[in-house]
């Protein structure tokens, strides 16, 4: 990924900044600039997601691409945020801990590193919300 491409997504990746349509109340993450439901009647504003959600479904990745090989086996899940938007992300827990419906919360982690001399990409992952 080029430096600029990642840099543009820092608000989303670090702080889960998405958008909300004030007309219908839907929250979009990653952010959309047009509401697909309200179209020209939609009014899009910035919206910071709370970072709370639950596991909709998941997969255990045993055969990972190079930059994630250190972490395998790891849990990749689709999380439904409490605002309603869904995102694909890693859940940091043992593979046998995860289940559909598990409450999760966001944490700040390294997403990947471009080798030993490249940029370190940070962003949001999820952990079980036990509190």
């Amino acid at each position, binding site marked *: 990924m080029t430096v600029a491409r990642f840099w543009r997504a*820092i608000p989303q990746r*670090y*702080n889960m900044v998405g958008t909300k349509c004030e007309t219908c109340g839907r929250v979009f993450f990653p952010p959309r600039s047009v509401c697909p439901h309200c179209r020209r009647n939609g009014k899009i504003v910035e919206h910071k997601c709370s970072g709370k959600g639950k596991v909709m479904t998941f997969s255990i990745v045993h055969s990972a691409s190079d930059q994630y090989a*250190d*972490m395998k086996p790891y849990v990749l899940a689709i999380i439904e945020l409490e605002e309603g938007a869904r995102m694909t992300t890693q859940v*940091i827990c043992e593979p046998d801990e995860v289940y559909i419906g598990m409450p999760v919360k966001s*944490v*700040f*982690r*390294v*997403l990947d590193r471009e080798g030993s001399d490249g940029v*370190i990409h*940070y962003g949001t*992952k999820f952990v079980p919300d036990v509190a």
Partner: protein
Amino acid sequence: MVGIITYGAYIPRYRIKVEEIARVWGANAAEIKGGLGVSEKAVPDYDENTATIAVEAARSALARRAVDPAEIKAVYVGSESHPYAVKPTAVTVGEAIGATPVMTAADYEFACKAGTAGIQTAMGLVSSGMMKYAVAIGADTAQGAPGDALEYTAAAGGAAYVIGNDDPIAVINHTCSFSTDTPDFWRREGEDYPRHGGRFSGEPGYFKHVTGAAHMMLEHMGTKPADYDYAVFHQPNAKFPQKGAAMLGFTHDQIKTGLLAPRLGNTYSGAVPLGLAAVLDVAKPGDRIFITSYGSGSGSDAFDLTVTDAILDKIDRSKGPSVEAMLACATYLDYAVYARHKGKIKV
């Protein structure tokens, strides 16, 4: 009065026991545990580093008290394990807590005392009226060379402090420092692991500077050790702070709450900030806290604090994980997996 507005701590969930490290290197675990007073240490996950620890600690601080991030005009991160040699950890933290772009930021390095040096800088900026809030963080993912004495203690963790003037939960009554050029521990540019002067790091290093700064504080304040409810000293192991405390006249009861090294190891720049966080987790209004950090190279920063009523009604300590809760949440690793976690295996 300038003081701590809110605070947050972070300790990774992984641990390795001294016995497991000793097993691999053919060392006598009982002797090492007896000598260091440390039984296990915290290990970062693959995707954790000083920046992620600093962010989690800072976010915990902001969860405990509604501080407007736009009023945070400075972020300082002290560490000897910044992820980049050149590119600040502090702006990553600033971005992740919403304090950017109207803020100043820098990374500090002073072996194990860079976190307390950041607190002093934040105090100056706030006291001078330059800003309302400044954030100071001490965090590390400390490295010890495989088989070296440091490997038994070099741990991961950190704590963050928002420093300000309005309704602090603890007033910082005074700070003073004692610093000299003493080469007891160092890491040269480009080297993976630090080197140290072995026993030399004791008397001319740790004890001279810790007692130097602590005596200066007692003299400046006209206090004696018995005037304090809690004391936190830098803890490269569990023995040094206990010996240093005894030399100064502090009792075990005063230091036990902030003495985390037996279960945590040495979190370097995070050590005294985490010890103070453990004290603030249980402190009551009126409690007086004595702190002295130590950074090899060498220097010590001493602080005298008084906890205020604001700790009861201005922050909600339950909104962030307590140090005790994070210490209790431990997953143990064997040496091979630990070595993978720490990037000690080169392929």
